[in-house]
């Protein structure tokens, strides 16, 4: 649910990073937070829990400058990836304007990637939305693991699993090192703002 404030000339959009547990959603946000300057970023909100897992959500507000005289403000959210937190993921998806699906290159996460995408489709349907109508990009994270002895999936395998129906743009990433993080953010921001703007301002 985008919010367009004609008085302040601001557009607020919500982008959610979705994916299975430990795939690197929070790492994406942390990298963006550390790399951006203070003027463009807000305070990163992480709900304190024991351990590394996200229990509720992380939030990072960004100011992406002006388009046609409108200030573009984007809020990046992550969801808890673990299967049992389905209700929380559904809650965070409320009012989503753009999606980044983060998939994990590790072979052990093969099933989890597919399950998570199915879970996303189901949760969107409960908000009367489909993946096809919401701007979405895919990020294949941990590509730096491919040359190591750790068993990984191939890009082709990931594409067949996740992008056969979706047919969207894919970004290879290594979020801990920042590879592909800003490319993903740039593309999803562009698509989301375009989606919101064409719906309201240009019609």
């Amino acid at each position, binding site marked *: *649910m985008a*919010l*367009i*404030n004609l008085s302040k000339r601001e557009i607020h959009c919500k982008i959610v990073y979705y994916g299975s547990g430990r795939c690197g959603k929070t790492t994406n946000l942390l990298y963006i937070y550390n790399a951006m300057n203070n003027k463009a970023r807000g305070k990163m909100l992480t709900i304190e829990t024991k351990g590394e897992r996200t229990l509720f959500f992380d939030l990072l507000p960004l100011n992406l400058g002006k388009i046609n005289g409108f200030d573009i403000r984007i*809020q990046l959210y992550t969801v808890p990836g673990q299967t049992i937190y389905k209700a929380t993921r559904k*809650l965070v998806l409320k*009012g989503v304007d753009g999606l980044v699906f983060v998939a994990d290159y590790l072979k052990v996460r093969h099933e989890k990637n597919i399950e998570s995408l199915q879970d996303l489709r189901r949760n969107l349907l409960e908000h009367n939305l489909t993946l096809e109508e919401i701007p979405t990009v895919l990020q294949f994270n941990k590509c730096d693991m491919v040359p190591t002895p750790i068993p990984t999936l191939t890009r082709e395998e990931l594409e067949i699993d996740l992008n056969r129906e979706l047919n969207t743009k894919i970004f290879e990433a290594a979020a801990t090192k920042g590879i592909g993080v800003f490319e993903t953010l740039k593309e999803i921001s562009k698509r989301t703002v375009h989606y919101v703007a064409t719906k309201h301002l240009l019609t």
Partner: protein
Amino acid sequence: MADLVLTTSILEETRIQIENTLIKAGVNTVLLIDEAGNIVVACGHKTDNLDTISLAALAAANFGATSQIAKLIGEDDFALLFHKGEKDSIHVARIGTDLILVTIFGDNVSLGLIRLRVAQLAKSIEKTFGQK
């Protein structure tokens, strides 16, 4: 959940309603937010020192979470939430289907007054947004 397009007149009218009903009654801060955690209107003399973006996101999430608790015990929703602090307290109430009103007030204002004023305000805000 439809997108929300806010015009200057809707915002001004809502701000005046909040100022007259709650801020004049001694309330520190009032945030009108949507269910996605976006701030629609922020009023009060403490908003500059407050991380309103985080507060709005957490309040919306908290409201959503308690709605799920309500469903677990067979209720549709809890219409209001109240968190009591040592000095400041927070009152959170649903307005219509898409909006949430977050009221932060000190111990000099009674909860009863807040509940009464929020109930009055809810009706007038609903009317303002219904007319857009």
